[in-house]
Each structure stands twice: as C-alpha cells, then as structure tokens.
C-alpha cells in the first residue's frame, strides 16, 4: 500500500482522474449531450464537483489517521487545487453567460441575494488557499500560520453547502446529503480538538503542580 501511495504514477493517475469530470463535460459538449440548457448543466456540474472535491480534500486528514495511511497527504494539495479549478469554472459561468460580465450588475446581485453572497464568499475564501498552496508559501508563512489560514476550507465547504441548499426550489435531498458529509468531517475534527484539549488541560495542571512541588 505504501509503495502504491508513494509511487509517482499514482500521483499522475489521481491528477488524470480529477480531470475526468471536465473531460466528461467536453465530451458531452461535442456530442450534443449537455441537454436543452447547456449553461445550467455546466453550472450545476461544476458546482457539484467543487463540493465533491472540497469533501474529498477534507477526507484526507481523517483517512490518514483512521486508516493509518500518512502518505495520503501527497494528494491533498492537488485535490484542493482541483476544488478551486472547478469553482473557477463555476464562477465563470456566472460571470459570463448569466451576467454578461456586467460588473455593476454582478456587484448588485452579490450584495442583494444571500444565495449568491454566500457562494461568492466561499469562492473568495478559496482564493488565498490556492495562492498559498506552494512549498515556498508554506515556508514563508511558517507551518503553524499556514495551517491556520488553510482552515478556511472548513468555512468554504459550509458556504458551498448553504449556497446549494438555498439554490434548490424544494427538493433538498442532494444539498442535505452534501451537508451531512461536511458535518461529519467537521465534527470529527471538533471532537479531536476537544479531546486533545481535555487531555492537555490535566497535563498542564499536573505539570504546574509538579513545578509547584519542585518550588516547595
């Protein structure tokens, strides 16, 4: 398993796999398969893949720990960047076909409609993460600060789910499904954080106690 995960070819395979949704869209576009409303089809597809890639990216850490596969970390950056890639396509369909690149109208729409606002916020949150995804930026920011910054993905995923939930008219099954996945992934982290804190607090107290003992 380790050999497989650390192989250069696995990385290439994952990269190509991440391009499959785009490939499928292009294939459909060339074969009249985008349906009666191609723009909407592309918008929905790229939006869903953004959420899926965010969720897959959020799976890396729990899977590393629970399955004892630390090498999964090798794929996290690519997966996160693909989430950003698909959200860019998603955003472009909004800027172009929906709003005809009319910046004034876009600004009004973003400010006026909560469903657009929250989607736009989610997109904005991902921009600095994509920009600082390089090794150089990790060094420049320092591991701790870089990690803090990249926790913004939690909020981006939540924003994405709310955006989807507010978009549908009445059948909320799909947004709720994605919402449940994001909730599980975030609760797992919260639970880990809480139990770490609980085990740290007594340790701190006992070390203070020890210091007090030593002073006495």
């Amino acid at each position: 398993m380790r050999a497989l995960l650390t192989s250069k070819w696995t990385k290439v395979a994952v990269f190509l796999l991440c391009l499959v949704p785009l490939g499928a869209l292009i294939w459909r576009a060339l074969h009249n398969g985008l349906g009666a409303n191609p723009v909407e089809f592309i918008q929905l597809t790229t939006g869903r893949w953004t959420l899926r890639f965010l969720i897959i990216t959020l799976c890396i850490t729990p899977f590393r720990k629970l399955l004892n596969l630390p090498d999964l970390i090798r794929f996290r950056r690519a997966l996160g960047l693909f989430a950003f890639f698909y959200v860019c396509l998603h955003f472009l369909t909004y800027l172009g076909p929906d709003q005809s690149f009319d910046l004034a109208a876009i600004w009004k729409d973003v400010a006026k409609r909560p469903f657009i606002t929250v989607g736009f916020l989610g997109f904005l949150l991902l921009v600095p993460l994509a920009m600082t995804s390089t090794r150089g930026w990790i060094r420049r920011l320092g591991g701790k600060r870089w990690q803090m910054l990249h926790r913004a993905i939690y909020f981006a995923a939540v924003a994405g789910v709310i955006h989807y939930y507010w978009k549908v008219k009445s059948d909320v099954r799909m947004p709720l499904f994605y919402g449940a996945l994001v909730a599980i992934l975030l609760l797992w982290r919260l639970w880990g954080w809480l139990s770490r804190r609980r085990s740290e607090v007594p340790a701190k107290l006992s070390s203070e106690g020890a210091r007090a003992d030593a002073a006495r």
Partner: protein
Amino acid sequence: MLIRKAPELTYADVTPKSVYLDRRRFLRAMGIVGATAVTAKGLFDLALPPQVVSAATKFTSLVNSPFSTSEKQNSYEDVTHYNNFYEFGTDKSDPAKNAKNFNTSGWTVSVEGEVAKARKFTMDEILKLAPLEERIYRHRCVEAWSIVVPWIGFSFSSLIKLVEPTPKAQFVAFQSYYDSRQMPAGRWAGIEFPYVEGLRLDEAMNPLTLLCVGMYGESLPNQDGAPVRMVIPWKYGFKSIKSLVKIKFQQKMPPTTWNLAASNEYGFYSNVNPGVDHPRWSQAKERRLGEIFKRPTLMFNGYSDQVASLYNGMDLKKNY
C-alpha cells in the same frame, strides 16, 4: 414439484414500433459499426438521455391564432426533455424518463362549484368543445429560463361559457391528477400533491388563457401534462397546471401549491414581471433555451396589450 412460471412481460418490454419497423436498417448498421461501437454506445447511453418513442395522435386542420408569436420555436426535443413536472421527479430530465408509462386512458375532467351546469367531460368531449387552434406562445419559467412552444387548444373561456358560472363565481380552482403509484418520484418533490392552482375569473376568461390538449401538431406527451393542461402565457410556468382533472368555480381565492410551499417566494398572481425579483434570484432576465446569454424579460412576458388592464390599480409588487 415446483413449476416455475416464466417472468411476465410488461408493456415496457415491448420493442418500440419505430425500432421494430427499422430492424433491417438496424441490423445493417450493426454490421457496419461493429461490436466495439455498440459496447461504447451502451456505456455512453448511461450518460446521455434516451430517446422517447411517443404514441401521439396527430391533429389536422388546426386554426392559426392571431395570438401566435413569430419567434423561433424551441425544438420538440428541448420542450419534452427539459421541463418541470414534480410529480415525476424534480430534475428537469426526470419527467421524460418517469412519465413514459403514465396511463391517461379514460380521462375525465370534472367541472364543479358555482356553475349552473356542473358536469364531467371526457377527452373526446373536450376535443370537440371548440375548434382546435395552434398557438405559439412564449413560456417563461420562474427559474428564469424560457421557451417558445406551439401549443394546441382553445380559449378556456369556451368551456366557461358552456358551464355557465353563477354570479358567486369569482375564482377558478384547478387540480392536477395525482397517483403515488404512478408517480412514485413525487414523494421527494418537497411540495404537496395533488398540485393545485387558481385564477381570478376575469383572468380565466381572458382569450389568451388556453385549455391545451397538444403541442407540435400532436397530442400532449405525458411529460408535458397529458392529456389536458392549462397554458397561461403571461404568468410563470408553474401557474399552467398539467394533467388537469378538476376545475372548480368558487367565491374564495383558492390555495395554490407553490404559494403553500413558500408564500414569500410565490404569490397567487405570479405574473411575469422583470421588476419584481424572486427573493433568491433576479427576474429581470431569462435564458431562452438554445441561447447562451440571457435576454431581458418582458412585462407580462410580452402580453401586456392583452392582459395589463386586468391589473389596473393593483400594486404588483405586493400582489406578486
């Protein structure tokens, strides 16, 4: 000894007539294209919507209507494979898939309430009620997409005059057919069924209000509201109720399905109005199917001349 019965064939197993008639060409094509292509096609069929073979009856000698637009009509394929009919599922490709075997035989429409001549109409009676016209209307969905459809039918007022509403009748309530066994996907729609809609009597009397029995020269396909539906072109699409079974004349404003589901988003009137946005999206523009960029939405969907006077003195921001 256990004697196993062969599995019974259902109507779904019947080879579509067009395929049957075309079997020689089909076999020839098979030979040319080869087995690999067939396998590939099988895989890609999973990704692409299948063709529906419809058993529609053709209408001949249709009257042309002065209400028809000369705008470019959308394709039959688009109108039959991209639409909302939540009883058959909430994805716009669902109705075409799930309404295939919808049984509309023995259909009747019951007219009741504040009328002198309450009665039931069979489909034959409806088809003979007035000369059938072709009306090419713009159709604007509340989701900000639009189509141009050549509907077939006649002014709903013809039926109204026949049943003679009493002076108490001020509204007309409509009800769709609902059968959870034939429409199992409806369970997940998130709205209540049977679907109900309504009009003010003067709106219902307006000559544009169409009792519709067909489109594109044929009877209505199942997924577009067979066998009989309403078409009210100056209102958002959801007002044009499908698969109509009951019409009730009454004094009170009737409840309407989308208003019951979200009253802040969908009002009783729901006239197409670019100046009044849906709380979650703009109604100023729409995407005509087949176009990439959005076009401006017209007041009353471009039917102001015929219907604006119905709403004189009304605040359309409040009565959305």
